[in-house]
């Protein structure tokens, strides 16, 4: 996991923060999930999780395209191709997209979990 973040560079670091935000939002909404105001808060937190999850995927995809472009540039333009350079660029590109989807998975899990809590709160 640590290697994944290191390989992703700055985008990976930002994705890590987004993941932490998703976890924080979920925990905060769960802790405050009592009362009428909390029900509204649950809805807002669920939408926020969707926003952060979507943003993480887009950011991961952006890092992926930039990484693939760099790898292809190494192959197409260079006279002698260094396999190390190509693999580093491809690793960076794959790491960001994997991290992006990982954050989306966390946000999705939080969204589903809060949905269950919201339904229970409405039923009671």
């Amino acid at each position: 996991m640590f290697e994944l973040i290191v390989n992703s560079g700055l985008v990976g670091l930002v994705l890590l923060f987004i993941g932490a935000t998703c976890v924080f939002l979920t925990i905060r909404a769960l802790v405050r999930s009592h009362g009428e105001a909390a029900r509204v808060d649950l809805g807002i937190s669920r939408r926020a999780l969707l926003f952060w999850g979507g943003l993480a995927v887009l950011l991961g995809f952006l890092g992926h395209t930039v990484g693939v472009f760099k790898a292809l540039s190494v192959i197409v333009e260079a006279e002698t191709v260094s396999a190390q350079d190509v693999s580093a660029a491809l690793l960076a590109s794959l790491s960001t997209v994997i991290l992006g989807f990982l954050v989306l998975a966390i946000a999705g899990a939080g969204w589903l979990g809060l949905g269950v809590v919201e339904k229970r709160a409405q039923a009671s």
Partner: protein
Amino acid sequence: MNTFDDVLREVSEQMDLPLDVRRRVLLELAADLEDLRRSGVESGLDDAAARARALEFVDYDPQAVSALAAVHAAAPRRFLEGLSGVARSRGERVVLLLVSLALVQVGGTLCVGGEFVQCAGALAWPVLFVLLATVLAALLGFYRQRVRGDQRAVAARATWTWLTRSMLLQAALGLIAMGIGLSEALAALGEHATDAEVTKSVGDIPEGLLAQLRILRKTTAALALASFGLLVACLLWHRSAQRLHTFEHGELELLRSLAVEGFPTGTTPSTPHSTQLPCSN
């Protein structure tokens, strides 16, 4: 509900003032109108005639309302007032700032040297054009809301709608670029299918494969630009949605307070048409 609720709403939409100032002006106007209507009813007029006479007496003027903006709040003050955060928590705002900084860094990589733009070729220009239009629309909205202090939900919704469309357009352009790139790559694959050679080292990459790699590189460059544009549009859209939410919430509160503090006629406060929130985060 105030008897002059419709008139007050109309005046509210025309007023280019911060919410607190607008609230004071509208309360004053509501009280004046109601006083006049009541005195008309007391002097023997029916309710409709008294209402019409009250409106004739007050006869508000949009230009006078605009002049009020200059009197009540100077541009720097309105600008500073608008700087108050609307994101839900400080942590979220910091992460958004980090995302923006990462985008600046990636944007620098994409634009400095022009390698991506040059490589993407014709596919880059529609993406860059939409990106430029998006940033201009956001800047215009920023100027209108922060510098001129125009905090009407109607105006904020126009910016929000534009940013939503440009976000969808960026996504569509990315898909088109991917479609074009993949079809070109497939065509090249068919063309060079007979060139199959055993590659012993990277230096021996056959020309057919190199052609495909160049096409894929072009497609990737266009995709990188499109996803960058989409992310920029997303962040601007998010900000715009937050502002719109704040303005609509403020207007709803304003109308509610007028209904409560004004002169109720026994009915429940009406909900304005613009209270449908597009995004509350």
